[in-house]
């Protein structure tokens, strides 16, 4: 502690993905000093993995599109469990966020008029996704990264020091959000390279840490997706909302091993890829839910025609929202019609020529050819559900992204909850990052302006430091790697894509047991870039997330979006009125039901009442929204 690195900033941003960087830009533009802290190198965030595009109703390809249509699609996709205000802000502001990226150097694919091109995607009524081939996430992260550099260059011109007011702390893990007098005071962590501890004093902290996929065995997430922000927020006294909702991407690779879990982007289906089972049946026609009957084709002929004439035909059922596709694949596999590795076939080689596939899906082709020797222009892929995205997250005020219950704490991006309801539409996450990243930045600016500094006390510091040192003081304790594997088995088998009450109860017990044992983890080697040591802290976060998910899932006795209960297969309108709020009492996660905010009349009226009848109770319909 003698040589503790100390810094003081106005805002500390935990996470350097799209949301964190967008928040940083906003706060720095407003004149604040900003630290960006990330676990990896700068520019490696999981945002790079997003392939399909960023949804924004710019109407460049179809001018019928506008924010109201986008809002409706988002609510429908989330099965009306979304926080209406977040969905509204997102739909309204997404186009501006895309256009500003272009001013910062992003080069999206173009329409023939020279505007930003937009493509079709599951759940979106019109072509809406701004994209760059299939590497849109990379374009977004690089543009934001370069925007940060541009701001630093500006600071350098003006003050002579590029990093004085905006600095990236790469390869630093935050282990504690610090509070003093009930308000945020800073963040504490360690440098991954050296293991040395580091303190940030700041009155505002923005959490933008992304997802929780590493809690599960098969996931598209990288090692970073360990739910750090979720756990940090819980421990700081914030709430998590609706943690039972996890998106299993319907099409992850199940074979070969080296690419297991890796996503096959929805664009493959958007460009004409079809799903078949081991009998060769195009099975998706059997799984069109009633609410979608009028939008999706029920026969192959019409589905095929849609690719040529979209105005007069219904869409192919392969483009149904993700949860429907995931559930359909799961059902096929469980019924014994899956491939030998437990997936189904996704084939794009029959409809498109090899050249067109390479042009439209370049990194898909490249990836599977190089990683696994699979040539998608010639053969079908073997795909199945993989844990991809968590809809649940920190409960926030929509307009400011302020975490409910903790002054000075903000959350944006995947780590925040509410925006996507029970299921996220593809393409909405990239614009979610930008819209709410900016709003979190604005929220932090307002907060810092009205609240002064909040110094960290010696006692608080001591507590945070002790926690980091702890694993080294034990010998012969538990191995973090094996506990992590145990946890992944539990979540995969008992809290996975299809759940039952009995299994969830069992899971809660097992997670509690692993958590108890994890208090006794010991680490070999020293502090210097020691992955075993790093995992000890990540595991602690994942355990809290898993507990919150399992407990929320046990309470919700219905199936909706990213939560499927075998013992309660239907969607239930009474359950739609309820959010599940997780909090932490220093010992365990407590989950309570909380009424969902009521849709205001002007938003209620955007929908056909008959559509709402599928989701809402007669009483809600008769009220017609709040006034």
């Amino acid at each position, binding site marked *: 502690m003698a040589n503790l690195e100390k810094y003081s900033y106005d805002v500390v941003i935990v996470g350097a993905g799209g949301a964190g960087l967008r928040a940083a830009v906003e706060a720095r533009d407003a004149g604040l000093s900003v630290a960006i802290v990330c676990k990896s190198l700068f520019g490696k965030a999981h945002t790079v993995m997003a392939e399909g595009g960023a949804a924004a109703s710019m109407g460049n390809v179809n001018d019928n599109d506008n924010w109201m249509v986008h809002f409706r699609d988002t609510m429908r996709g989330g099965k009306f469990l979304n926080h209406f205000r977040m969905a509204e802000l997102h739909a309204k502001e997404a186009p501006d966020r895309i256009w500003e990226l272009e*001013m*910062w150097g992003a080069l999206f694919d173009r329409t023939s008029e020279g505007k930003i091109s937009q493509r079709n995607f599951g759940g979106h009524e019109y072509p809406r996704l701004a994209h760059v081939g299939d590497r849109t996430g990379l374009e977004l992260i690089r543009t934001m990264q370069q925007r940060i*550099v541009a701001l630093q260059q500006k600071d350098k011109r003006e003050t002579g020091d590029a990093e004085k007011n905006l600095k990236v702390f790469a390869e630093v893990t935050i282990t504690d959000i610090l509070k003093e007098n009930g308000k945020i005071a800073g963040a504490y962590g360690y440098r991954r390279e050296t293991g040395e501890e580091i303190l940030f004093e700041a009155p505002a902290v923005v959490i933008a840490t992304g997802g929780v996929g590493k809690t599960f065995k098969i996931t598209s997430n990288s090692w970073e997706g360990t739910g750090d922000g979720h756990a940090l927020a819980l421990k700081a006294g914030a709430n998590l909302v609706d943690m039972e909702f996890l998106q299993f991407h319907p099409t992850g690779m199940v074979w070969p091993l080296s690419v297991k879990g890796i996503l096959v982007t929805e664009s493959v289906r958007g460009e004409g890829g079809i799903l078949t089972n081991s009998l060769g049946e195009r099975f998706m026609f059997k799984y069109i839910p009633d609410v979608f009957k009028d939008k999706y084709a029920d026969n192959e002929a019409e589905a095929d025609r849609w690719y040529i004439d979209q105005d007069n035909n219904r869409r192919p059922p392969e483009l149904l929202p993700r949860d429907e596709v995931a559930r359909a694949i799961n059902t096929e596999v469980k019924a014994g019609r899956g491939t030998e590795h437990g997936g189904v076939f996704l084939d794009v080689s029959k409809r498109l020529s090899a050249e067109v596939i390479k042009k439209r899906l370049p990194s898909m082709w490249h990836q599977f050819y190089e*990683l696994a020797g699979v040539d998608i222009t010639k053969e079908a892929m073997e795909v199945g559900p993989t844990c991809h995205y968590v809809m649940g997250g920190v409960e926030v005020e929509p307009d400011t992204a302020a975490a409910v219950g903790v002054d000075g704490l903000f959350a944006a991006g995947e780590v925040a909850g509410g925006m996507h309801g029970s299921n996220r539409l593809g393409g909405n996450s990239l614009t979610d990052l930008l819209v709410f990243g900016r709003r979190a930045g604005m929220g932090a600016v307002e907060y810092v302006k009205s609240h002064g500094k909040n110094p960290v006390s010696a006692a608080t510091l001591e507590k945070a430091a002790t926690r980091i040192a702890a694993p080294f003081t034990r010998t012969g304790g538990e191995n973090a790697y094996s506990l992590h594997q145990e946890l992944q088995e539990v979540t995969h088998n008992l809290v996975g894509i299809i759940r039952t009450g009995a299994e969830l109860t069992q899971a809660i017990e097992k997670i509690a047991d692993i958590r108890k044992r994890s208090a006794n983890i010991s680490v070999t080697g020293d502090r210097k870039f020691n992955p075993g040591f790093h995992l000890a802290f990540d595991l602690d976060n994942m355990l809290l997330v898993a507990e919150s998910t399992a407990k929320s899932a046990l309470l919700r006795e219905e199936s909706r979006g990213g939560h499927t209960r075998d013992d309660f297969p239907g969607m239930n309108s009474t359950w739609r009125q309820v959010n599940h709020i997780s909090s932490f009492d220093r010992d365990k996660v407590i989950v309570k039901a909380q009424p969902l905010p009521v849709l205001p009349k002007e938003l209620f009226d955007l929908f056909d009442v008959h559509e709402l009848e599928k989701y809402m109770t007669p009483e809600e319909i008769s009220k017609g929204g709040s006034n």
Partner: protein
Amino acid sequence: MARTLKLRIWRGDDKTGGLQDVTVEANHGEVVLDIIHRVQATQMGDLAVRWNCKAGKCGSCSMEINGKPRLACMTQVASYPEDETITITPLRAFPVIKDLVTDVSFNYKKAMEIPSVEMPPGMKPGEPRMQQIDVERSQEFRKCIECFLCQDTCHVIRDHEENKKSFAGPRFFIRIAELDMHPLDILRNRKKSAQEEHGLGMCNITKCCTEVCPEHIRITDNAIIPMKERVVDEKYDPLRWLGSKIRKREGML
């Protein structure tokens, strides 16, 4: 299916270190990063390695495998003969931190030295109009995942530490080319500064950067050589120079 694999992994830090022999199981279809993870989980809990996506998209797991700069997640174990010992070392152009992790901050410093995109004054968000054929060249360079393998293999800095001051490296030559070919960027001194400040002239186009690029960006042919030619236009071609003076005088530019 499974095979026993012999590895030599470099372990150490900036002061000492050496290759250590390891024997480990490998399954069908696995890549070198899978193997390193298995070593980590079973034999060397504190083996340091950088990685993120394990899908060839983030550019974190750069290292040298049998002496070649590569992404560990994109290197199939099956591409090596059964009896071959695979040697894994950190990148050799950068200072080592621990084991397979190197200090790549050089690259972030260089990124800071290249002026950002500058859009025409008065242009508002939503207004830019660009044709696909005009953005395609720059789009190729924006595929870069910043794995820094090109920087690692480039002999200008790999073999000459002292050149690091004056040489930006292939990754940043494609960045300069990207901006110089951007249809709307208004900065006009990128060619000159490429030559005078970023060391474009140091490159002797021996193409190793192109050979190691996991994104198959044609760094030399599409970025460095076109930039060298653009520099010639401005600095070394008396006819072009004369022509541009005349056109300027006649208001043709």
